[in-house]
Structures are given as C-alpha cells and as structure tokens.
C-alpha cells in the first residue's frame, strides 16, 4: 500500500507541507524505544510511536523509514516538525492508540517489520 492508504486507515492528519502520499509503504514498526526502531532491519516502513521529540525523526531517517505516525492524537514538538520538514520525513498524527492503530494497519495487510532481540 502507499502512504495515502496508511493515512486513511489511521484516519491521520499529515502535519508537514508537501507530503508525497504516493510513496510505497512495505511494513510497519510500532515502538517507543529508539533502539527497537533501529533494530527494525528493513527499510520503506512506517513508524508508529508515542514519542514526539526530534530524535524520532533522526532515528527514522537513519533507519530509512518513510513516515512517522504519532499515536493518540499527539502533536510533535516544534523542533521535531522543523527537522522533519528539512529532512523530508512525513509526520502524521492519528487519533488511535498504539494498540488499535497497529491492529488496523496489520489487519489491512501491512506486515510487521519488528525483529526479535538477538540472543547473546
């Protein structure tokens, strides 16, 4: 599916201008721990998170996510929006909680890109 479909399922509101809604989204990762996000090893996914600080954008960018969706109607900090717009990372806010949003996207066919902790 593409970002437009994801936003529709999330009943989301795009927050930065000039979001390309046609980019393909291959999977999703729901996490509030940035290391978990970085461990999600496949690119072209959407990140569902409750964190709204600028690090979310940096993390998503490094891990090659294609968009960030904030859960429970959260609005990002102003700095977060500035960095996201600079780095062309789409930010979307969704009224659903993490649990419900994951359920909605997963049951619509979006696979999980979360990976297991490596055994040490």
């Amino acid at each position, binding site marked *: 599916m593409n970002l437009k479909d994801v936003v529709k399922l999330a009943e989301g509101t795009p927050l930065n201008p000039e979001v390309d809604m*046609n980019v393909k989204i291959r999977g999703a990762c729901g996490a509030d721990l940035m*290391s978990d996000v970085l461990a999600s090893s496949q690119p072209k996914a959407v990140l569902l998170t409750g964190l709204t600080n600028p*690090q979310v954008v940096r993390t998503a960018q490094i891990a090659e996510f294609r968009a960030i969706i904030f859960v429970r109607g959260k609005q990002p900090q102003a700095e977060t929006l500035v960095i996201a717009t600079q780095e062309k990372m789409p930010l979307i806010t969704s009224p659903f909680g993490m649990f419900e949003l994951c359920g909605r996207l997963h049951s619509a066919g979006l696979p999980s890109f979360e990976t297991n902790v490596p055994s040490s």
Partner: protein
Amino acid sequence: MDVFTALDFQASKRMCPPARTPTEQEAHGRRDRPITDHDAHEINRVEELSYDLKIQDVMTADLRTATPEMPLSNVLDILRINRISGLPVVENGYLAGILSIEDIIRAMEKNDLSVPTRNYMTRDVVTVASYESIVKAMRTFTEKGLGRLPVVDENRKLVGMITKGDITRGILVALQRDYKEEEVRRYRASHLFEDIISERTTLVLRYTIQAGDFTQGGKASSHIKRALIRLGADPQITRRCCISVYEAEMNLIIHATNGGILKLEVEPHRITMSTTDEGPGIPDTEIVFQPGYSTATEQVREMGFGAGMGLVNMKRCVDQIELNSTVGKGTKLVMRMFIPNQTFGGRREGQDDEPSTDH
C-alpha cells in the same frame, strides 16, 4: 485507474521504445509483475515530476488548426501533410470542437468531403488547463481513453495540444536537467578513490559531539549517511554503518561527561567508525553488551533511549567492534565494516537502491 497506475504506466513508457505507447491493458498488465526496487526508484522520480511539471511546460503550442467553415477536403490535406490524426477547430481563438481522422472517414463514406468541418466535428471536447500538472493530463488520457487533448488557458482559449509523447519528452528533459548537477557531484565523489593515487588513501570525517545536546543528536550521523551515499557506498553497508554510528553518537550525548569526538575513516576496503570521550568511563566493558543493560537516567529513557540495546544493535550491524574504557579517563569505541570487492567508485546507475525486500 488511480494516479499511481497512470504514473506506473508512464514510467513503463519511458523504458519502452518511445515510438510506441503501451495500451491501457499493457499498463495494467505491467502492474501485476513484481516491480523491482530499480523500477520503484524510477517511478518516484517520474512521480515527483508529474506533479511539478505543468501542462504548458510540455505541450505543443505551435498548432495546426481548422475553422468551422473550412471544407473537410482542406482539413484532410492538413492532416496528410502534417502526418497527424486530428485537428482542433477554432473560432475566434476559442475551441469550437475537434476533428479526427475518424470523422473524416465517416464523411468519406457518405462522399461528403466538400461540407464544412462544422458538420462533422465533435463539439463536446474534453480539455485540460495549461496551468494544471501533467498528472492531470495523464489521468484524463487513461480515464477517457484519448491520445491527445486540447489545452486551454484560464480564459478557456485554446493555447496548445498535449499528447502522451509530449509528456514523455517533457519528463525526460526535466530528469536530465534535474539530475545533471547531482550526477556530476556523485561522479566526482565516487571516483575519489580512483582519482587520487597513493599507497593508502583515507578520507576522514570528524564531528564534535556535545554532551546532553539532544536537539542536535543524530545530525552527525545524517551527514555521514549523505557522505557515504555520495561516495557510492553500497546501500546496505551505508545503512548498517549509519545505525551503528547513530547509536554511538547518542551514547556520547547521553553518557560522556564532556561529549566527545565521532570519527569516520573511509578507505576503499573498509570503513572505520570510532568515538572517543574523556569519561566517565565504563567499569565493565562486557556487561554493556548484554541486551537490556542500561545506566541511562529516567529523563533519557523518556526520550526513547537508554533501553540497553545500543551496543547490541551496533554489534549486530558491524563486522568488528572494540570497546576500551578506563574509569576516570575515558572510553574509545571502534567499529569496522569491511567492504567486499571494494565497492567504492564502481558505482553505476541504480546502485543506490536498497536490496530488494519485496517479493
């Protein structure tokens, strides 16, 4: 047909010989076969341009036109001489209708070529506006099954015609213009290691990381990512390096008393990433590799860091990792990534795509 299919169709056209355009069926057919990352990459560029380029940028403005009173035999001559299959019919600058070769055939069947164009032209004409994006024209082509569209301005006056071929040409010209600059830059950077002859060439990137500066956190890693891409590094190696370097950068911000130095040394056969700081130092350099072990404060955890997975992630990503620390003196972390077949500089078009994860 949705926009994306139209764009997909457009992209497929670019890869086909330009003389022939695929039918709608072919365009649909193409969607069923797996789209490779290379295709996806191309579509995205074309997609952007489909919104950026305006119809007036690509349309043909130098038009052959007919008038409503012109006899059909004259129109037939214009079509034949110019090797075109239809003409807009214009009255006082406004579009009155369109006459296609099919209309002339209808007239020929009745042996009726001496009558005015008015009698056989199609009056209810689908048009597009000159100030709209070309994606609008593409959509109209596929929705209406048409091959050419008259273009009108804001006053509804005829200003040009647009065909699928015009769109293809327009996109190709724009692509060439847009990417020339970046290509030149990339070319120069990716040939760095070939152009400079030495026994051992190393490119060193150095960044000072301030303690507690969460707002700037990750900025150095972003710069490193851009540099590696421009140097022509393999995308997967770039990704693994950047994840490790980002975790390391955040560690300096979170833990190092006075921040530290993040350094990247790029050589044709390997990339070495290192951080050095002046303390506090790590008492046990083994336990920090255990998943979940963390000394981060509650404040840091609230920001989504300090889950005790940083070094675990780094170890997973790189080929070699060494952590040396003395309490009270400082810590040095060195990570190495070996580059198979010295992929730097050997970059070709399309190599910046991620390896396929789509099946």
